[in-house]
């Protein structure tokens, strides 16, 4: 909660950190009409004391009113509502791809630890971590759209147009997950109870999947939570590469156009989404880890 208040203060301050007269600074890039200037002045009411302005900003924001975009003249909340589903769809598909590929690579590497499979998997992962998403995206476009002609390169709508951008983010992200699954699994596999499972004659795969994986996934969940921010980063860039609509695209155009009401809205919504997902990740621990569940039960 204090974090959310803090976030709102930061977002509120964006306008006040501008050099010079904020209204003029905001409108400088916009070819604004005097009418727009009047409206913005009325909207911001910069002569009031700062705390009062802040309270007004928050009251409006809570009601979903972030003002109007300087360029399109439409309510910011409407712009966001139009772009959000596209980004959520992209992010969700990317997470699924990342999870499946990352888990598979990590498992392979851990089970065949110190063999060429391990080394190959980790090399792929290193490449994935080091590959900027815009470059990966262009490579995918080059191969799958331009050379093979399997999938459309850009635009909106349908699974075929979702697959490449989601794969771009997903593969980037899966590299991180793979490295983590591997190291976490290796750590868990060193435990005594794993020896027990092996001793009773289970195959290595059964040991890994049934006994080790559950515990190994706990640190992985933490990092996935932290990495959700990077996923958002991924959408910002990938949406530009694939000319998709979405929050990321909206954020970039807003910054390029110096469309401050829009920047404020997008940043606030994204940050809130990020905080919320991290909260969900925290909550999911107790579902994953009986130890935490019991500790919390004991405390209560």
């Amino acid at each position, binding site marked *: 909660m*204090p*974090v*959310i208040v*803090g*976030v709102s*203060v*930061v977002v509120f301050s*964006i306008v006040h*950190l*501008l050099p010079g007269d904020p209204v003029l600074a905001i409108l400088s890039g916009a070819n604004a009409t005097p009418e727009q200037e009047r409206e913005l002045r009325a909207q911001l009411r910069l002569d009031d004391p700062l705390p009062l302005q802040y309270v007004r900003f928050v009251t409006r924001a809570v009601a979903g009113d972030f003002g109007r975009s300087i360029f399109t003249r439409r309510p910011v909340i409407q712009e966001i509502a139009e772009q959000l589903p596209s980004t959520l769809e992209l992010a969700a598909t990317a997470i699924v791809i990342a999870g499946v590929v990352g888990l598979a690579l990590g498992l392979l590497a851990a089970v065949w630890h110190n063999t060429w499979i391990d080394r190959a998997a980790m090399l792929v992962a*290193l*490449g994935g*971590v*080091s*590959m*900027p*998403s*815009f*470059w990966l995206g*262009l*490579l995918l*476009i*080059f191969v799958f759209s*331009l050379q093979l002609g399997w999938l459309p390169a850009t635009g909106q709508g349908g699974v075929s147009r979702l697959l490449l951008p989601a794969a771009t983010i997903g593969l980037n992200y899966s590299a*991180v997950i793979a*490295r*983590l699954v591997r*190291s*976490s699994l290796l750590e868990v596999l060193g435990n005594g109870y794993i020896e027990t499972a092996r001793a009773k004659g289970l195959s290595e795969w059964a040991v890994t999947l049934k006994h080790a994986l559950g515990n190994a996934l706990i*640190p992985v969940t*933490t*990092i996935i939570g932290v*990495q*959700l*921010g*990077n996923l*958002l*980063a991924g959408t*910002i*860039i990938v949406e*530009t*590469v694939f000319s998709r609509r979405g929050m990321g695209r909206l*954020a*970039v155009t*807003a*910054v*390029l156009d*110096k469309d*401050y009401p829009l*920047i404020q809205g997008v*940043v606030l919504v*994204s*940050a809130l989404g*990020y*905080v919320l997902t991290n909260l969900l990740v925290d909550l999911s621990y107790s579902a994953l880890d009986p130890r935490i569940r019991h500790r919390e039960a004991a405390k209560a």
Partner: protein
Amino acid sequence: MLPRVLRRRKSALAGALILVVIALAALFAPALVPYDPIKIAPAAALSPPSLTHPFGTDQYGRDILSRAMTGARLSLLTGLGAVAVALTAGVVVGLACGVIGGWTDLLVMRVVDIMMAFPGILMALVVVAVLGQGTLNVMLAVGVSLIPTFVRLVRGDVLSVRENAYVEAARALGCWPTRVALRHVLPNVVAPIIVISTVAIAWSIILGASLSFLGLGPRPPIPEWGIDLSSGRNYLLRAWWISSVPGFCIMLTVVAVNLVGDALRDELDPRLRSLANL
């Protein structure tokens, strides 16, 4: 420390060698480049890799190799500069918080929590939105987005080092708090700071190039990997080399930094494994 890591790990040595080559190419680019990286030569536009232009030319006939070498300067500078910003802020604030504790610590950590609520690139976008576009601002933006990670790491380690008997001894002997912090605590938190800095450099190079790719960084015709990659986007079929060369350069640099970073982490601080995945 570094020589030992390099001797023991071949992959780290490979990474370090690649970095040295890239750094030298960047440093001496003005003297080494075969062509002017900015001057337009329409007659040579879009020529494929050949003996005269090893990596081909772009849509304006500019030599890709020359642009890539010159572009390395900005990318490396952004990476190092951003980490320098984050490192300075992180060490000063983290050390102060860890040593002083109390209200200061509480307050600063709240601020850090708030900064953490903005995922890296979003924070960078906000900073660019306020400061405006440009090379220096991108560096600052990337640096600022890294500050919370650094502050948290340094503070956490300072808190655990502070509990050691030798720190208590120093305090009992009547050392000033600043002396305790600088002479007794700081040297013992250097290892994780080095590890995280290496990873952060890789991250900064990618983020910096991303911002230029989006058009928020330096402006064309300045040679920069992100810009060049973006400008080749519309020529993928006719001239794949325009985007591929800068793209490959970014990847190679980041792989090299990560190779060194991974080795350093394993040698210095295995505990950081998850953190270093930043």
